[in-house]
């Protein structure tokens, strides 16, 4: 029998962005309940954000405070552009996006896409980084006001807020799009290639940019800044300055550019949001492949781990090796290492050296200006970034870690196997970076130096991060977005990551000291000493952290199990 569907007489109350913001605040608040250390970490992160905010504020306000109006456009366009770029890239590379409100949770609610996007967007604005950037960018308002009075200041306020909205929208749209790409099995390789190409392009661009900076005088830089000011990267930030400097007609045009860009980004986000809401279901089932060869054990071991013994250690290595490739979240991390590993050393050694030796006779010698110390420091950075991926290695497993607890795997075997499997992917990557860097620098003799520095830092980093992964683990949300962080405590987790990186870097400082003190002898010693240092540190780390792990396996399992 057909049931009459009555369209209810009582009007449905409309859902507005306010509800989403309140929901986010409530979730954040509940997340802190009874977790003293989380509150402490959050406050620490907030203070750090405040510090950045205040220093940013004074940087932006500098032209206004000193009355040097000619630099105002430069500061606004370059600083603002960097802000937008940072919002775009940092979530992809380091911190992930805060998915306190997971779009998938709203899939069943009768909400229009417009309501959902505006709501999630409003909720995304409620965060410490947004507040920090808001404070910092009000330096621009001060500059505009002091140079051009209240009307310029008012336009600057509008511009700065529009710019902030642009930052958040850009980061959401980009991570959401990448998440969609990485989630789908078919195009995941395409996404990897795309990221790699972006990385490959960033290096040369950086070098080019810094070389141009060295050549150019300030007036030419201001010219570049003016051009940037007409792109979405600089438009919102420079609108107020334009009014102050008499170009009143420019302000509405620039605000229009911003609004159009904002609209386009939100539209893009709303499209990829759809697939995020349907979630893993849209990934499509992998075709059932028959014709399996070999027994179960032979199937478990991928080619990369084929050498391993068919025992407990070997099984752990094989499973981890498979997971680094099959788990979208882990794969995203591997890609990040490749990206950072390639472009940061090139940037530091070519660009940095050129920048430091700014008055060198000609640009062809810029490569020669790099020093063993600088090379070792850049390698240190790469090694630290590579190793910090393991800082929450048990969080990747989630509740599946119960299998290892039930089987009673000894901590040292567990950590040693995890290090080994990760290194199967990362060490070739690091070796590649080291060789490429030596060749790009025109110093093939430095290959030992680069590899030695990398391996030493990486090994020390493995040791530090093993301990961090046992003591500071946290659960990752069970969404298919590899960039998602768990509810609210994103600041705290970023802080933990920074701490782990700092500790790893400190552990590798002896390599830099040796590079500085030992001179040419170090070029030969770096490889054997670095390799021994790295291996020794990793073994010691597995030994010590393994002991800790043995004592707190159930506690670790409880912390990495997502709360439902």
């Amino acid at each position, binding site marked *: 029998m057909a049931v009459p569907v009555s369209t209810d007489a009582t009007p449905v109350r409309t859902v507005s962005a306010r509800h989403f913001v309140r929901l986010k605040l409530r979730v954040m608040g509940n997340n802190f309940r*009874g977790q003293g250390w989380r509150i402490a970490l959050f406050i620490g992160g907030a203070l750090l954000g405040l510090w950045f905010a205040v220093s940013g504020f004074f940087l932006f306000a500098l032209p206004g405070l000193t009355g040097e109006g000619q630099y105002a456009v430069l500061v606004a366009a370059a600083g603002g552009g960097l802000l937008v770029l940072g919002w775009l890239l940092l979530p992809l590379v380091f911190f992930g996006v805060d998915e306190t409100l997971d779009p998938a949770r709203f899939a069943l609610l009768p909400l229009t896409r417009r309501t959902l996007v505006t709501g999630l967007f409003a909720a995304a604005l409620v965060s410490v980084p947004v507040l920090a950037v808001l404070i910092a960018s009000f330096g621009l308002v001060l500059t505009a006001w002091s140079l051009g009075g209240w009307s310029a200041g008012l336009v600057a306020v509008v511009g700065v807020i529009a710019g902030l909205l642009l930052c958040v929208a850009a980061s959401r749209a980009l991570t959401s799009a990448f998440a969609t790409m990485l989630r789908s099995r078919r195009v995941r390789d395409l996404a990897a290639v795309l990221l790699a190409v972006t990385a490959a392009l960033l290096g040369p661009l950086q070098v080019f940019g810094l070389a141009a900076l060295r050549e150019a005088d300030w007036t030419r830089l201001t010219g570049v800044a003016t051009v940037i000011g007409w792109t979405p990267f600089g438009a919102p930030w420079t609108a107020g300055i334009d009014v102050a400097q008499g170009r009143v007609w420019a302000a509405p045009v620039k605000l229009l550019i911003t609004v159009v860009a904002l609209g386009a980004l939100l539209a893009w986000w709303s499209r990829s949001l759809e697939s995020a809401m349907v979630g893993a279901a849209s990934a499509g089932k992998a075709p059932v492949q028959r014709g399996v060869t070999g027994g*179960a054990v032979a199937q478990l071991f991928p080619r990369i781990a084929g050498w391993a013994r*068919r025992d407990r250690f070997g099984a752990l290595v094989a499973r981890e090796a498979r997971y680094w490739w099959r788990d979208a979240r882990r794969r995203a991390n591997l890609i990040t290492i490749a990206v950072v590993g390639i472009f940061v050393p090139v940037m530091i050694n070519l660009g940095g050296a050129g920048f430091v030796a700014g008055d060198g006779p000609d640009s062809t010698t810029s490569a020669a200006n790099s020093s063993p110390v600088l090379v070792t420091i850049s390698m240190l950075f790469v090694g630290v970034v590579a190793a910090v991926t393991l800082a929450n290695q048990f969080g990747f497993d989630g509740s599946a870690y119960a*299998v290892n607890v039930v089987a009673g795997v000894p901590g040292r075997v567990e950590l040693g196997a995890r290090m080994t499997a990760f290194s199967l992917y990362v060490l070739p990557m690091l070796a590649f970076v080291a060789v490429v860097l030596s060749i790009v620098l025109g110093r093939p003799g430095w290959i030992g130096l680069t590899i030695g520095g990398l391996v030493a830092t990486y090994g020390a980093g493995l040791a530090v991060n093993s301990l961090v992964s046992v003591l500071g683990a946290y659960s990752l949300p069970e969404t298919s977005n590899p960039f998602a962080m768990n509810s609210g405590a994103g600041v705290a987790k970023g802080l933990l990551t920074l701490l782990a990186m700092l500790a790893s870097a400190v552990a590798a400082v002896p390599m830099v000291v040796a590079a500085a003190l030992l001179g040419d002898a170090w070029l030969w010693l770096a490889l054997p000493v670095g390799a021994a240092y790295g291996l020794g540190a990793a073994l010691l780390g597995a030994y010590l952290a393994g002991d800790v792990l043995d004592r707190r396996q159930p506690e670790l399992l409880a912390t990495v199990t997502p709360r439902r």
Partner: protein
Amino acid sequence: MTVEHPALALRGLAKRFDGTIAVAGVDLDVPAGSFYGLLGPNGAGKTTTLSMAVGLLRPDAGSARVLGQDVWQDPVAAKRLLGVMPDGVRLFDRLTGAELLAYNGLLRGMDPAVVDQRAAELLDVLALGDAGRTLVVDYSAGMKKKIGLACALLHGPRVLVLDEPFEAVDPVSAALIRDILTRYAAGGGTVVFSSHVMEVVERLCSHVAILASGTIKRVGTIGEVRGDRSLEQVFVEVVGGRTATGEELSWLSR
């Protein structure tokens, strides 16, 4: 062994989460060779109790022994005797079924040849061989339960602890799981499982315990607990709570 140890002996197990008591002192003896059903409503503490019994969750108080081996003092010896399927079937689900079995077997220190042979048999019997290279994450709920059971059985444990093995399983798979468990118990193994499906418990179990609000309310052989009534009647009486609606919800039948 001269002294006959119970397959599972729990003494005063207790656990509280953030101020709420999940399990308030559970004592339980599971005789070796028995088929033991742990009954209880949602949130009664079944999963918490079983997790503490197998070494997944550290109890605030009390002890758990598997065939005389203390799970928390000597975990390695106790875990060797245990086969466990945790709640929600926590597995490394980005492996295929065969890979997952191989992983579990090697993790338990088994010989690779034996792992290969048993994995092939288990996949065949549980009708999972057709899945081929499909990852476990893409399995249906019933298939996940079956592969979880296979992982728990692979190393030939003396005691099998299963959390909700019949939840979300279709009748065909359920019959298959029942058959495997019956054969395992007939061969001298001990099965402990939690459930709130009365029919299954009545059909399979030699012993039952009813858990509610973190304590054991009834325990014994199924005959002792049930008496001359049905198990469901006993269960509802013990657990209490409402089984019919009254005047409210009138808008449902508008």
